[in-house]
C-alpha cells in the first residue's frame, strides 16, 4: 500500500502495482494499448505517457511510460496538466494511423473498439500523414477467428496471450519493422483451446469472431445479460449477445473469482448450438408439428390416463429445473433421476462428496505443485488453463492419463511437466502407492514433489476416473494435510447441483423400472440418455414405452425418438442457477427471447401442485442458503451434507485391450450441435501406443486401420499411433463409443483391417478444417 500523486490527486496503489494499474483503479483515463490486466505490460505501444514532477532542484521533468514503471510511495506525475505527455500519446496514435485503414464503418469492432476510443481520447482527429498506407495479407484461421491484418497496430497482446499466457506455439509474431505480422506459419485453425481469446484481447478489429461475423450486429444493438457458461463444470462468467431473437456471440464476462478475463473456445462457440438448423423450436406431437403453447402441450401430455411416469432431469439443466422435476415426480408418484448413466452418477456423487475444499481457478494458478489425473484439457479447458499458469512459473505439474491430451503433449516444451500413461483401472493403485511412499522418510519422485509443496493441488476428471481412483486422490490430499486441495472436473455444468437432487442409485432404479415395465412413460428434460454411456440399455428400454415426452433444445437422439417434443430454452434464453465443480452457486440471467414458442424451464413450476411448489421453495432455501446470488455476481460456495451413494460394479483389469475415451476440448453434448465449432472435430481414429501394438502382435503404421469388436458391434477406424495412449488401452472418441454402444473400460478385440491407400496424407490443415456448406470462408475475397 502506498500513495502516489497524479496531477496532485492522491492515488492509492497495491504492492506490485505499476503506475498505470493504480491510475486505472482511480478512474484516471490514461490511454493504453499493450497493457492488459491479465497479461501485464511490455511497454511496446508507448501511449500511456506521463510527465514526472521533479522532486529535487535541478532535476528535469521526464516523460515516462506508466505501464512499466513500478509504483512507489510519493511519486508525482503530471498527466492532464502536462504539456508534453498528451503530445506523446497523440503522436503515437498518429503513428498507428499511418498504417491503420480507418475502415471503422465496415469493421466488426467499430463502435466497440479500444483503438477508436483511445484515438478519440487522445484527440487525434486530423491526419497529416499523406503517404501511401501499407497493406498486409490476411490469413485464414479456420472457422472461428477472422483476421484482417491491415487493422493491426502491433500491440503484441494476441501473441502475449497465445504464447505467454496460454502456452500455445502455433501462432506468433513474424517479420520485423513495420512489417510485423501476427499469424500461424500455415493457414488453418488454431491448435489451442483458448484461441478465441485473441479476439477478446485484440484492441482493434484485427482478430474478430468469425461466427459473429456471419450473423453480425453492431454490438450496442445486442441484447446482453450476465450469464454462466453451460458447457463444463467450471461455470465461467459469460455475456451472450443476441438480436432479433437469435444468439449472435458470446464473450467472457470479467469476474474476480472464477474465470477472470478469458473463456475457452468451447464456451465461446458451443452456445451457437442454439442456432442449429435442426434445433427443435416447435412442439411436435406424434411426429406432427403443432402451433400450440409448449406448456399446454406438456400439461396435456402428462395428463394421459394410462401412464405410469418416470421423470428424468439433467446435469446440464439448472438447479431449480431439477428441483421442480423432482417435485413433479413426487406429485406423479414417479421415480426421478438427474443422471443418464449409473456409473457417472456414482462417480459424480463420489467426487462431489470429496469436493468441499475444491480449489478455485486462482488457487490452481497459485499452486506450487499440481497432480492431474485424467485428460483435464478435454473435460474442463479453463481449469487446465489455470494449470498452465502454474506450469509457466516452472511449478511441477504431474499428470496421470490414459489417452492423448493437449496438456500431456506439452511435456517436451515444459520442463516442469511430467506425464505418465496408465490404464484407468490401475490409477487407484498408483495413487495408493503414492500415499504409502509419502509416509516413508525418503520419499522420491512425485511423492517428494507433493510432500515438499506448500500449496499442492490435486485435480481429477470425474467422468473417466474409477470411483476407487477418485477416493484415492482425495485420500492423497488428506494425507498431504490441510494445505493440499483436491477438486474434480465434473461431467456437466450443473453436475454438482444434479447430485444434490437425485437419490442414491436413482438412474439405475429408473432404468430398471423401465426395463421391468413398472413404468411406461418417461418425461425427459434436457438430457439425452440414448447417446450417453448407457445408450444401448436406454434405447432398448425406451423402445418399449408408449409415452416419451422430451423437453430439449438440441436435436438429440432421444428427441428424435420422442412421442412428444417440447422445445426448451438454452441457457442464454432463461434464468437459472448452476452449481459449479467447487460448489459455487452462480445464477444466470436471460439475454433474449426467441420469437417462437419455446418453454422456459422456469415455467415448469406451473405443473406442480401448491404443496410441491412450497417444497421446491424450501428445498432451494435449504440447499442454497438464504442468499440467492444475483446474475453476474460471484456466488458463494455451499458445503452440502455427504450424499449417500449406492454400490456399483466397475470395470476390472482384463487381459485384452480396454477402451478409453479420446476426448476433444470442443466436445460436449450441446457443443456438438454448434456447426462451426463441431466442424473442427478431429477425424475419428483409434489411438494406440506403438509399443503396445507391437506387444499385441500388430504391425501398424500411419496407413493402418483396425477393427474394434466389442459385444456384437464392430467398428473400423484408421490408426493413430500415439505414445500418449496407455499400455493396455485403445482410445476412441465419444462418437465411436456411441456407435459401438460400448462403455468406458470395456474389453475389446482388435483385428487388422484393410489399409488406407498409400497416397501421401493430405496436409493437416485440410484435415483440421472442413469448410461449412455455403461458408464463404475467405470472407468475400476471391482466392
Amino acid at each position: 500500500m502506498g500513495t502516489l500523486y497524479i496531477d496532485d490527486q492522491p492515488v492509492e496503489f497495491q504492492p506490485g502495482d505499476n503506475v498505470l494499474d493504480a491510475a486505472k483503479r482511480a478512474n484516471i483515463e490514461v490511454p493504453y494499448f499493450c497493457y492488459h490486466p491479465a497479461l501485464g505490460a511490455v511497454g511496446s505501444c508507448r501511449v500511456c505517457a506521463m510527465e514526472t514532477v521533479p522532486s529535487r532542484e535541478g532535476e528535469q521533468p521526464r516523460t515516462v511510460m506508466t505501464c512499466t514503471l513500478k509504483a512507489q510511495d510519493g511519486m508525482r506525475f503530471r498527466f492532464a496538466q502536462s504539456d508534453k505527455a498528451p503530445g506523446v500519446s497523440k503522436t503515437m496514435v498518429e503513428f498507428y494511423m499511418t498504417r491503420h485503414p480507418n475502415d471503422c464503418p465496415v469493421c466488426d469492432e467499430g463502435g466497440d473498439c479500444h483503438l477508436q476510443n483511445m484515438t478519440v481520447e487522445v484527440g487525434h482527429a486530423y491526419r497529416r500523414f499523406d503517404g501511401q498506407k501499407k497493406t498486409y495479407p490476411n490469413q485464414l484461421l479456420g472457422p472461428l477467428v477472422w483476421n484482417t491484418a491491415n487493422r493491426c497496430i502491433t500491440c503484441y497482446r494476441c501473441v502475449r496471450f497465445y504464447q505467454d499466457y496460454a502456452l500455445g506455439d502455433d501462432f506468433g509474431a513474424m517479420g520485423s519493422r513495420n512489417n510485423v505480422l501476427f499469424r500461424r506459419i500455415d493457414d488453418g485453425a488454431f491448435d489451442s483451446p483458448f484461441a478465441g481469446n485473441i479476439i477478446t484481447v485484440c484492441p482493434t478489429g484485427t482478430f474478430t469472431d468469425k461466427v459473429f461475423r456471419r450473423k453480425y450486429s453492431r454490438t450496442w444493438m445486442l441484447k446482453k445479460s450476465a450469464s454462466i457458461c453451460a458447457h463444463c463444470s467450471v461455470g465461467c462468467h459469460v455475456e451472450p449477445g443476441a438480436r432479433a431473437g437469435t444468439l449472435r456471440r458470446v464473450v467472457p464476462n470479467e469476474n474476480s473469482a472464477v474465470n477472470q478475463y478469458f473463456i475457452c473456445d468451447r464456451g465461446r462457440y458451443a452456445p451457437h448450438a442454439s442456432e442449429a438448423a435442426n434445433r427443435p423450436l416447435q412442439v411436435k406431437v406424434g411426429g406432427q408439428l403443432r402451433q400450440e403453447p409448449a406448456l399446454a402441450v406438456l400439461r396435456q401430455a402428462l395428463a394421459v390416463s394410462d401412464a405410469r411416469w418416470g421423470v428424468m432431469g439433467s446435469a446440464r439443466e439448472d438447479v431449480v429445473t431439477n428441483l421442480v422435476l423432482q417435485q413433479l415426480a413426487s406429485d406423479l408418484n414417479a421415480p426421478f433421476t438427474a443422471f443418464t448413466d449409473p456409473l457417472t452418477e456414482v462417480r459424480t456423487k463420489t467426487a462431489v462428496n470429496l469436493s468441499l475444499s475444491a480449489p478455485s481457478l486462482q488457487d490452481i494458478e497459485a499452486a506450487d505443485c499440481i497432480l492431474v489425473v485424467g485428460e483435464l484439457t478435454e473435460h474442463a479447458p479453463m481449469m487446465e488453463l489455470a494449470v498452465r499458469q502454474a506450469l509457466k512459473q516452472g511449478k511441477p505439474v504431474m499428470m496421470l492419463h490414459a489417452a492423448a491430451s493437449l496438456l500431456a503433449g506439452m511435456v517436451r516444451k515444459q520442463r516442469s511437466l511430467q506425464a505418465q500413461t496408465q490404464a484407468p483401472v490401475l490409477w487407484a493403485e498408483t495413487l495408493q502407492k503414492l500415499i504409502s511412499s509419502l509416509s516413508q522418510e525418503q520419499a522420491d519422485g512425485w511423492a517428494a514433489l507433493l510432500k515438499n509443496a506448500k500449496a499442492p493441488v490435486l485435480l481429477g476428471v470425474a467422468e473417466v476416473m474409477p470411483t476407487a481412483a477418485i477416493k484415492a486422490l482425495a485420500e492423497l490430499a488428506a494425507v498431504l494435510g490441510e494445505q493440499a486441495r483436491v477438486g474434480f472436473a465434473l461431467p456437466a455444468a450443473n453436475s454438482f447441483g444434479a447430485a444434490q437432487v437425485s437419490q442414491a442409485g436413482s438412474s439405475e432404479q429408473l432404468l430398471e423400472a423401465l426395463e421391468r415395465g413398472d413404468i411406461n412413460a418417461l418425461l425427459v428434460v434436457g438430457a439425452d440418455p440414448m447417446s450417453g454411456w448407457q445408450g444401448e440399455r436406454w434405447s432398448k428400454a425406451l423402445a418399449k414405452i408408449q409415452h416419451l415426452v422430451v423437453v430439449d433444445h438440441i436435436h438429440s437422439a432421444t428427441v428424435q425418438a420422442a412421442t412428444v417434443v417440447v422445445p426448451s430454452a438454452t441457457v442464454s434464453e432463461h434464468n437459472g442457477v448452476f452449481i459449479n465443480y467447487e460448489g459455487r452457486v452462480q445464477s444466470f440471467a436471460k439475454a433474449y427471447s426467441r420469437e417462437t414458442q419455446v418453454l422456459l424451464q422456469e415455467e415448469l413450476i406451473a405443473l406442480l401442485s401448491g404443496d410441491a411448489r412450497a417444497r421446491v421453495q424450501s428445498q432451494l432455501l435449504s440447499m442454497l442458503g438464504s442468499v440467492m446470488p444475483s446474475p453476474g455476481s460471484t456466488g458463494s460456495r455451499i458445503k452440502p451434507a455427504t450424499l449417500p451413494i449406492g454400490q456399483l460394479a466397475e470395470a476390472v483389469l482384463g487381459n485384452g485391450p480396454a477402451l478409453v475415451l479420446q476426448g476433444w476440448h470442443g466436445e460436449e453434448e450441446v457443443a456438438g450441435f454448434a456447426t462451426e465449432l463441431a466442424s473442427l472435430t478431429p477425424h475419428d481414429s483409434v489411438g494406440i501406443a506403438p509399443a503396445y501394438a507391437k506387444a499385441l502382435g500388430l504391425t501398424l503404421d500411419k496407413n493402418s486401420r483396425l477393427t474394434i469388436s466389442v459385444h456384437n458391434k464392430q467398428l473400423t477406424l484408421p490408426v493413430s499411433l500415439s505414445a500418449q495412449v496407455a499400455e493396455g488401452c485403445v482410445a476412441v472418441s465419444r462418437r465411436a463409443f456411441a456407435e459401438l454402444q460400448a462403455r468406458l473400460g470395456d474389453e475389446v478385440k482388435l483385428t487388422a483391417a484393410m489399409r488406407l491407400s498409400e497416397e501421401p496424407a493430405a496436409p493437416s490443415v485440410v484435415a483440421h478444417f472442413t469448410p461449412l456448406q455455403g461458408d464463404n470462408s475467405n470472407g468475400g475475397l476471391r482466392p
Partner: protein
Amino acid sequence: MEKVLSRNFHHAQPLDLATYRAGGGYDSLQSIFGRDREEMVNELRASGLRGCGGAGFSTGLKWSFLAKDAPRPVYLVINLDESEPGSCKDRQVLYRDPHTIVEGVLASAYIIGADKAFVFVRGEYKVGAAKLEKAVQEARDAGLLGDNILGSGFSLDIDVHLSAGRYICGEETALLNALEGYRANPRSKPPFPAVKGLWGQPTIVNNMETVCHVPSIMHKGAQWFQGQGQNGGSGTHLFQVSGPVKNPGVFELPMGVTARELIYDHAGGLLDGRKLIAFQPGGSSTPFMTPDQLDTPMHFDAVAKIGSRLGTGGVIIMDDTICPLKYTRNLIEFYARESCGFCTPCRDGLPYLVHLFDKFELGTATAADHQTILELCGLIGPNTHCALAPGAVMPVQSALQLFDDEFKKHIAAKGCSYSPVAATASQAAAGAGVQGGHH
C-alpha cells in the same frame, strides 16, 4: 604509441597458436591468474578503458556492478554483432587475429569470474567466425580453455554463436534474447543484464574491442594504458574512416588523436576536388561534425562536449557532391528497416520520417513538412523502448540544424539540385521501399 589490437595485422594469415604465443600471446594470463579480482577491476577503472561498442561507459565500473555473491552461473557475452554503418573495426580483429579475441575473453572472464563466455558474431562475418572457432579449438587443445586452465583452478569455455542477422542484435538485451532463441526484441531495463541477463543469470555484455584491451592493461598497468592516449584520451582505439577519402580504412591510433590527423594524415584526406562538408565521428547514429571542429580530439568526452558522440570511432565523410538530405534519408531508411518492430515510435515513426524526406527529394515538400520532421524527431527520440530510434533521429536533428538552408532550398526549388535524376530513383523507393512493400 604501441599497437595492441593490430599488432599482428602485418601477417598475411591469422597466426596459429604457437606463433601467436611466440609473439607474447597469452603471456598476460600470468599477471592475471591468481590476482585479486576486485583489485583488477579497480585497476581497470583507473586505466580509463571505456566501452568501445559506442556507449563509452567505463568498463571497470560496469564490471563492478556484478554482485560479489551473484548467483551462479555468471556469463560473459561478447558483442561482435558489428552492424553500425561506418563501423568495421571488430571485423579486422576477427579476420586477422582471432587469438587476440580469445585471450581478451579469457582474461575478462577470469576477472569477472564468468562460468561461460559467448561470442555473438554478426551473421555476415561467417568466415571470420570460422577463424575464431578454429582459434578457440586450438586454445582448447592447448589447455587454455576448458577445466582448470593452466592449473589456476579457473574453468571456462567459449561458445562462438553466429547471429541469424539484424542490426538490433547489437543492442545488448536484444542480443541476449537472440542468443536464447527468442525474437531479437530489446528487453525492459531494469533489470540490467548484470543482475538478470542471459537465461535470467547475471551477465556482462561487452564489445569485442573492449575485452581485447584488458590483457595488455593487466600486463602493463593502468598507467601505461593511459599513456597510450593523447589529449586526455586513454589507450588506443581502432578508428575507421569511410567515404570519399584517398585511403579509407582501419587505423589503430591513440585515443584523442584529432579528427584532422585521422582524416588528413592517416586516411589521406578527401579525394581531389572534393570539399569536406561534414562528417559523422562514430558511425551512422552520431550527430554530424563540421570542418571547423576538425581539431577536436577524438575521445569520448571531447566529442561529447561539442554535441556529438564518439560512438565506435567509425568516421563517415560527407563531401560537397552529395545532397545532405539524401544522405540523411539514407540513414533513416536504414534504421526504419532495422527496427525490430516492437515499439510504436520506432516501428511507425521512422518510416514516417522517410516518407517526409522523400517529399523533399520529390519536390512536394512544404514548410509544414520541415516543421513535422523537427517535431517528430523530438517525439520519437526520447520515447522509445531502446536506443535504436534515438540513435536514428540524432543525425536527423543534427542535419536539421546544420542544413536548414538545404531544406528550404529543396522546398523552393521543388526538388534536389544535387542530382535531379535521383528523383526517379526516390520515386521508385517510395513505391517499393519501407512505405510500400506488400501490395
